[in-house]
């Protein structure tokens, strides 16, 4: 590629980097941002020649020129009412095109041992905790999208759960896209203190079928003996680009349970990186991608058993219709000395049309000898005998197929601990499995 006379090696990135917000008043954060900017300048947009992007070609992104959102779109409570999750209505942070909407956010838990607020707010009140964790988990040295996000880091969502607080209600982080052609950099930090418990819902939705680019980074720090239940719901516009990096650090005996549901975006990439920093952690990484039309949904997970005695369970399912393309890459690394690791991974994929496509790549790398690791992958169509059984009971062919597809998805959805959300998702899946688009 021809280099132009600028700091950035990659012209596309150079353009994106132009809209950066000015430096703030926290020196340490300015330093991180400067370092991230430097990395973004040095890196390039990946191509399918990069091993980590072998199945997913990011070049469609390059066809659009995205600008940072200028000025916040104002929404009324009524506009977002349909996204309110009843169980999580007491603690909700709302971001509109990446900009914090204080008037739509609620923080009932702040008197009960938790802090749910904007990062900007937290920088002044909880600077020390932020300095300790923010941008320390999500690696921007080697990931250009993470570097971009970090270079734009000025605000975002902050959740802190104090030591030994078991917070009963789920906390809802709601990212709403409204404007076309914008590049948005959602950022979230969750710090669960030792012995604490919480449930998070991280949700991306759109008010219109616009083309935009959401480049999100989420960091979750799970303290000793703490338990975090994390549901990520990606329902972006079907014309949007969604690239997300989620980095999780687990302390001794920490529990992290993650459900990732991918329904939207024309192009999505979810990187989930879990690092076991101490012994005896428990981790569940479940996922469901339900896509159709010409959607592409890529889930890359990386479970790093760096210490002994960790266990991890993973069930990832893709349901792919029409000419859609799903990618799953699940890496499990068991480092030297990480004895008694117990890891099981399963990738199950359902293809609903001849043109549907899935690439699944489980990757086990084991450098310890006393471990139990299993993985398996299946790719298939609906079972003809099951379809016939249902039809012999009066369901028509389409009804039988959508029920079976629904059942395949339900295994993941039923694990979501928030009842109304699971119900809503069941409904969405039901609708989607009946919906056939022409390609």
């Amino acid at each position, binding site marked *: 590629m021809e280099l132009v006379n600028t700091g950035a090696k990659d012209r596309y990135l150079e353009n994106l980097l132009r809209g950066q917000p000015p430096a703030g008043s926290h020196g340490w954060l300015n330093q991180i941002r400067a370092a991230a900017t430097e990395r973004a300048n040095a890196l390039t947009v990946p191509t399918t020649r990069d091993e980590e992007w072998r199945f997913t070609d990011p070049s469609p992104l390059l066809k659009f020129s995205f600008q940072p959102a200028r000025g916040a779109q104002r929404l009324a409570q009524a506009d977002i009412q349909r996204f309110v999750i009843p169980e999580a209505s007491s603690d909700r942070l709302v971001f509109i095109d990446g900009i914090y909407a204080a008037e739509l956010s609620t923080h009932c838990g702040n008197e009960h041992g938790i802090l749910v607020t904007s990062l900007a707010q937290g920088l002044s009140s909880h600077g020390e905790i932020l300095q300790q964790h923010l941008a320390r988990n999500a690696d921007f040295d080697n990931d250009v999208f993470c570097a971009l996000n970090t270079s734009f880091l000025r605000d975002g969502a902050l959740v802190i759960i104090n030591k030994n607080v078991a917070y009963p209600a789920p906390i809802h982080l709601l990212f709403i896209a409204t404007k076309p052609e914008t590049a948005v950099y959602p950022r979230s930090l969750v710090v669960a203190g030792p012995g604490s418990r919480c449930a998070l819902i991280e949700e991306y939705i759109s008010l219109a079928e616009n083309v935009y680019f959401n480049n999100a980074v989420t960091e979750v720090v799970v303290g000793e003996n703490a338990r975090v239940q994390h549901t990520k719901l990606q329902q972006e516009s079907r014309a949007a680009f969604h690239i997300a990096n989620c980095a999780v650090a687990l302390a001794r005996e920490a529990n992290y349970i993650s459900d990732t549901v991918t329904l939207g975006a024309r192009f999505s990439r979810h990187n989930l990186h879990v690092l076991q920093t101490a012994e005896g952690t428990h981790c569940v990484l479940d996922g469901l991608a339900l896509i159709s039309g010409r959607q592409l949904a890529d889930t890359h997970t990386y479970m790093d058993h760096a210490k002994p005695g960790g266990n991890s369970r993973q069930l990832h399912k893709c349901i792919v219709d029409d000419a859609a393309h799903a990618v799953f890459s699940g890496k499990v690394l068991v480092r030297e000395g990480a004895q008694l690791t117990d890891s099981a991974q399963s990738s199950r994929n359902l293809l609903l049309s001849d043109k549907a496509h899935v690439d699944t790549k489980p990757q086990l790398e084991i450098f310890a000898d006393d471990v139990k690791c299993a993985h398996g992958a299946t790719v298939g169509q609906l079972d003809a005998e099951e379809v016939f*059984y*249902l039809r*012999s*009971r*009066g*369901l028509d062919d389409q009804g039988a197929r959508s029920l*079976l597809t629904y059942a395949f998805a*339900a*295994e993941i959805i039923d694990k979501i601990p928030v009842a109304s959300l699971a119900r809503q998702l069941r409904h969405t899946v039901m609708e989607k499995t009946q919906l056939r688009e022409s390609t």
Partner: protein
Amino acid sequence: MNNKNILLEVRNLSAEVAGIEILKGINLVVKVGEVHALMGPNGSGKSTFAKVLAGHIDYTVTGGEVLYQGKNLLEMAPEERSRAGVFLAFQYPIEIPGVSNSAFLRLAYNTLQAARGREELDPLEFDDFIREKIKLVEMDPSFLDRSVNQGFSGGEKKRNEIVQMAVLEPKLAVLDETDSGLDIDALKVVANGVNHLIRPDNAIILVTHYQRLLNYIVPDYVHVIEGGQIVKTGGKELALELEKRGYDWVRAEFDAARAAA
């Protein structure tokens, strides 16, 4: 033949699966109110016949015809047959992970109700309805919450088939070896359940290997199928004779009769 009591009329039906001819000219007339037993050695084509009646796509009809209530059954899709009152209790019921038994039963019931222009039941109403129905075969209500047939024992699956029959109230029920896999007590219970579902306006074809079932559900006719043909038809006493003498003599008789003709 234009008898309005005739529910099913099978004329010279032949069918193949995977390119192999299995049914070689079946003839059978079933009138309302009748119970027919269909017996015969393993691999003789009993289940094939049952699946052809239910409309399984793997089985290709190569000749003959099947009239159900005077209409061409073979032209109907499996779900149309079901909605018209044809029911097959599978020899090997299918497991459907992820679909709860009660949701499945309700969906099947409501689909049928809608097709018949009758009112559907909401989950609460259906719950009352289904709890009554499962008493018929003494099924534990906990089976309603489990995935359809998943992890059910052989006998539990067979009971579940009869629960479905009770819900769908078919006109023509084909029970393919519903007795196999049932223990002695369960056999009585399930047979008793089936007897409760027999009405003057419906009919049953019982596929079985054992005379035992026929002590509880007494057939009007017993047919022997061999090599894809009905080689003998008799009354209920034929089952007793088969139990004693096996099938060889039936075949011999059939071949002799054919040679003479």
